[in-house]
């Protein structure tokens, strides 16, 4: 591979070596079982990372609509401030559930929106 290399070069002058190193590098990249080198410091990519802003807003809106719809099924005419307080408390488990679904390594915006909805419901 390097038949006319300079004296003092410390890079191997052996095709087999370079082919093997390239193969190991490819393995590391594709993480083939058995030969792949683990790359530290890499956390799993959250599912929403690949979504566009519009798609994420749509998904968050859908999630909110589902929860909001369930709220509307309640008899709003009889809801009182106390009911709202109870309702906010009832939302917490779903909030946590959504947060866990998001598997957030950062605060999920949808969960923040849920808290806002619950807070506003409580203020009515």
């Amino acid at each position, binding site marked *: 591979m*390097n038949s006319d290399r*300079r*004296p*003092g070069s410390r*890079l191997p002058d052996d095709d087999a070596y370079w082919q093997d190193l390239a193969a*190991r*590098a*490819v393995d590391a990249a594709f993480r083939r079982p058995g030969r792949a080198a683990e790359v530290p410091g*890499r956390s799993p990519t959250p599912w929403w990372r690949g979504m566009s802003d519009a798609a994420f807003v749509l998904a968050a809106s859908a999630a909110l609509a589902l929860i909001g719809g369930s709220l509307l099924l309640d008899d709003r005419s009889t809801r009182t401030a106390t009911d709202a307080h109870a309702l906010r408390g009832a939302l917490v488990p779903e909030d946590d559930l959504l947060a866990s679904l998001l598997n957030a390594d950062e605060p999920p915006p949808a969960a923040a929106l849920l808290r806002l909805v619950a807070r506003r419901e409580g203020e009515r």
Partner: protein
Amino acid sequence: MATTLRTTQDTESLVQPRARSDVDRLAVRAQDGDRQAFEALVRRLVRPALAAAWEFVPTREDAEDIVQDTFARTWRELARYDAARPFGPWFFTILRNVARNASRWDRRWTMISLTDEVIADEPRATNDETDALDRLDVDRIHAALAELSPMQRACFRLTGIEGFASAEAAAMLGISDATVRVHAHRAKRALRARLGAERGMEQP
């Protein structure tokens, strides 16, 4: 004594600013998920990658680890590559970041970043200087290299010994072409001062 350099066949297109090189085209194909193109890209870049990595870690095994991590990250991050730009500098930026994570060598990288851009352009080394160094025996060269600053050593080794063009070494080290030439020139001058008398070389 061999003076013909052949490493440019591996890296001839790493730093071309305009025309899209073979390396760039392979990168674009790999960006679209073409694994065979990525494998070809690895084969094209593995040699300069090891040469660059070895400048920042003490052993070949450490350098090989950096090379593997670099290609792994390159594959993962390919979507971020701007195909309008040469692939080489982008790739070696990843390599340097991987090397920087080897905490033992942080100080070395700090030194490099501090010395970049503060050195005025100096005359290019002449072929006579390079030829004179070619005549020295390898052990003495390495002993003298050990006394150079890391940046001088890296620039001289990549351009004077491994045969990379100064522009290629610049991409590999993340510094300007002119800075590479300045460091290489100063390294040769220092080596001449140290080794010249023993071999009857002209002192500067």
